[in-house]
């Protein structure tokens, strides 16, 4: 893997390499064509005003400013290759039957522990349903966007799978939150088990799961904003064939 050049750019090409670092090829191409046209105009204008060509090129390059700053701002506005890797993993995960099964198991587990744990009072049914349904609404919206994101020819099959997966995935998160929120009922936090290592393991699993879901939500918000721009080429996102027919 190439590393970002440390020295200050001496030419437009070097400036562009730094400014478009880790961006998608389609985005890089767009930025390159725009900045090259800008630079050419700037050099021509300076030469018309009497600057020699070499001086004009140096001034035009300096006027573009710090390539790293520009690159940082471009990365805030455009998808990077790292985003693409994450989206690809997320989409594959969303489509897999295995992940669907895991989510179903988790949901069942949370509901059983959270709602009918023998050591505590059950959580009111209306509260459970309100929270789960609210999250499901968000889940539907996320699923629809994901289906658009997947942009597969067999839209209906993927849409069904994504909807189901998101509904259950988000529901499991909601049930988990509900279980934590209703404190005493959650055995991980108030465990009376004899094995203290089990507590730690459960807590670690809980932290991992919550972090994963939070990271997904945060990334999702960022991608949703970025994916509406035409120059984030869909082909860069999903060159692989869909696993669901």
């Amino acid at each position: 893997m190439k590393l970002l050049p440390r020295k200050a750019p001496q030419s437009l090409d070097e400036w562009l390499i730094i400014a478009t670092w880790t961006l998608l090829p389609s985005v890089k191409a767009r930025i390159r064509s725009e900045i090259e046209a800008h630079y050419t105009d700037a050099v021509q204008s300076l030469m018309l005003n009497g600057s020699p060509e070499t001086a004009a090129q140096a001034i035009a390059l300096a006027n573009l400013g710090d390539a790293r700053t520009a690159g940082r701002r471009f990365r805030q506005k455009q998808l990077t290759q790292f985003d693409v890797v994450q989206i690809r993993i997320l989409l594959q995960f969303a489509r897999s039957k295995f992940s669907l099964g895991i989510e179903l198991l988790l949901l069942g587990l949370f509901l059983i522990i959270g709602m009918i744990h023998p050591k505590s009072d059950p959580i009111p049914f209306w509260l459970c349903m309100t929270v789960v349904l609210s999250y499901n609404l968000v889940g539907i919206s996320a699923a629809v966007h994901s289906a658009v994101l997947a942009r597969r020819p067999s839209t209906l099959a993927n849409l069904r799978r994504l909807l189901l997966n998101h509904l259950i995935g988000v529901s499991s998160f909601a049930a988990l939150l509900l279980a934590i929120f209703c404190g005493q009922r959650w055995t991980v936090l108030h465990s009376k088990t004899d094995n203290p290592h089990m507590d730690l393991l459960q807590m670690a699993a809980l932290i991992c799961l919550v972090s994963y879901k939070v990271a997904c939500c945060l990334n999702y918000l960022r991608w949703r904003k970025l994916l509406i721009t035409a120059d984030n080429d869909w082909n860069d996102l999903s060159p692989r064939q869909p696993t669901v027919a």
Partner: protein
Amino acid sequence: MPFAMNFKGSLPTLILQNLRRGPNHGYRIAQEIKQSSKGVLDFKEGTLYPALHGLEAKKLITSSVREENGRPRRHYKLTDKGRKALVRERQEWLQFSGAINGIFQEAT
């Protein structure tokens, strides 16, 4: 003497204001902003493009590639949403600058 404003915040508004007159490309937008401010507002031109891309992502402007002097140039155009955003931003700016002016006049 030119000074660098906090352009991260105000550059998008200046771009929208510039595009109010019609479609324009990056280089000309940069030059016109500098000229309109009589060289007072100076900024690094490389930061103009992330701002343009950000405005496009928010659907305040759209872009299309057109031929100009035999070369393809990407022209940006204000959308209706962008026009409304500009009106709002301008009102806020006028209120803000009016308040600051008031304070300075009181002080003198």
